[in-house]
């Protein structure tokens, strides 16, 4: 083999080697990055699941403690007239705070996400948001609701709504997703009339047309609300 042929072979080998390295690097990047992303995502999902399990346990424990305290207060009230008087006053306050189950005439509203559009600039408007829930809750209270629950979570005087991308978080509960059922006890006729009024809830009405978001409701003679099962702590507030 001549020197020229040797040089050509060496050049081809070097180019092949470089191409091999580039290809290997590319394949490694392509394979490792997604698998790292997957691992990170899965770790976050596991954390959420663990925290949600703790959350559910805590809420069960709170509900059990409130039931035990109620029983102890009832026993104490049997022993003293003044305690009985205090207990009667407390019962009304507990009812208004959402700490006791409630039933009566009312409405059930279902909010469900619609259909996404191909428009890439608007990828969330078809989803039920916490603002939608907030708007319906405010409407119902303005129209004679005396108590409301959302997705089985009782609304209290301190309740707040938050969330993102189709997740609705109420107080300390886990995120709720579509479809969401809101139940309200109160002036059934007034609430039904308001929900049927096309001029109220303008944002939801517009998205019903554009994204097929769903808002349905029905009245009932006796609907039920559960008791609140989370925190009512107000550590920064002092009376007086």
């Amino acid at each position: 083999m001549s020197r020229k042929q040797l040089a050509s072979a060496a050049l081809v080998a070097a180019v092949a080697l470089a191409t091999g390295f580039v290809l290997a690097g590319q394949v490694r990047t392509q394979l490792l990055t997604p698998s790292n992303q997957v691992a990170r995502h899965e770790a976050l999902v596991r954390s959420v699941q663990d925290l949600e399990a703790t959350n559910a346990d805590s809420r069960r424990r709170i509900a059990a403690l409130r039931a035990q305290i109620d029983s102890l207060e009832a026993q104490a009230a049997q022993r003293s007239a003044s305690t009985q008087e205090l207990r009667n006053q407390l019962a009304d306050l507990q009812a208004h705070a959402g700490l006791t189950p409630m039933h009566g005439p009312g409405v059930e509203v279902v909010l469900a996400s619609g259909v996404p559009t191909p428009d890439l600039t608007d990828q969330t408007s078809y989803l039920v948001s916490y603002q939608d829930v907030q708007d319906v809750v405010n409407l119902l209270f303005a129209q004679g609701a005396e108590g409301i629950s959302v997705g089985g979570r009782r609304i209290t005087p301190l309740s707040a709504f938050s969330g993102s991308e189709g997740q609705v978080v109420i107080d300390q509960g886990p995120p709720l997703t579509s479809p969401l059922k809101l139940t309200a006890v109160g002036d059934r006729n007034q609430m039904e009339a308001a929900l049927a009024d096309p001029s109220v809830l303008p944002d939801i009405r517009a998205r019903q047309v554009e994204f097929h978001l769903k808002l349905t409701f029905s009245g009932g003679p006796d609907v039920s609300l559960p008791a609140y099962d989370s925190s009512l702590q107000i550590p920064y507030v002092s009376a007086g």
Partner: protein
Amino acid sequence: MSQPVRPASRRPSPRLRGASVWLIALLVALVATVQIRSQAEVERSLAGTDTTSLAFLIDDLHRANDLLDAETADLTGRQAALQSGSAGSADQVLAAEAAHLRAIEGLTPVHGPGVVIVIDAGGLGVLDLQDAINNLSAGGGEAIDVNGHRIVVGVATSQANGSVTVGGEPISPPWTISVIGDPTRLLEVAQLMTQQLRTDRRVRQADYRVETDLAIRSVVSERPYVYAIGS
């Protein structure tokens, strides 16, 4: 005349060629499978919630669980006091719980650290007020007053004849929103809220101030139930 002989070593045998083709095909298939599976796995797992939303969710759940722990500790203490058995301790527990619930339901004046936000604007509607109140409640607010009207969830806020009403009474701009609660979190919310409001063309002024002991004197009127029955 002799036939020219082809050099046998220059061309691989048909068996070797077949094996090479199969080997290359196998490698291509392997790489393609790994690649496609990785991609599918990513798409499947990311289909629900994005990583940033998950991180926010974890933060919210941590805060929620801390609050639930505090509530559990408080209830456990109340249970222990009641289990002590004396009528005096039971009365104390009941009175303390009643005072606590009165504050939550807006039935008594309250005070504590907080922020005061002043928004002067023309054309803001009830949805703007409801958004502001919800943002402040979600951001650590525990007691809220707007222009001398106590706000709790359940107090009707609506729009009538172009003006915003709270509990049936109209409120005129500027809105002065007083909020008692976690001062650190409320400060962040107030900063963000006023920053956003200043970009709104309807808003003439949006400012806030922090108060170490803010007093809210307004109260909500007690409303007996007409329709609801306790279970």
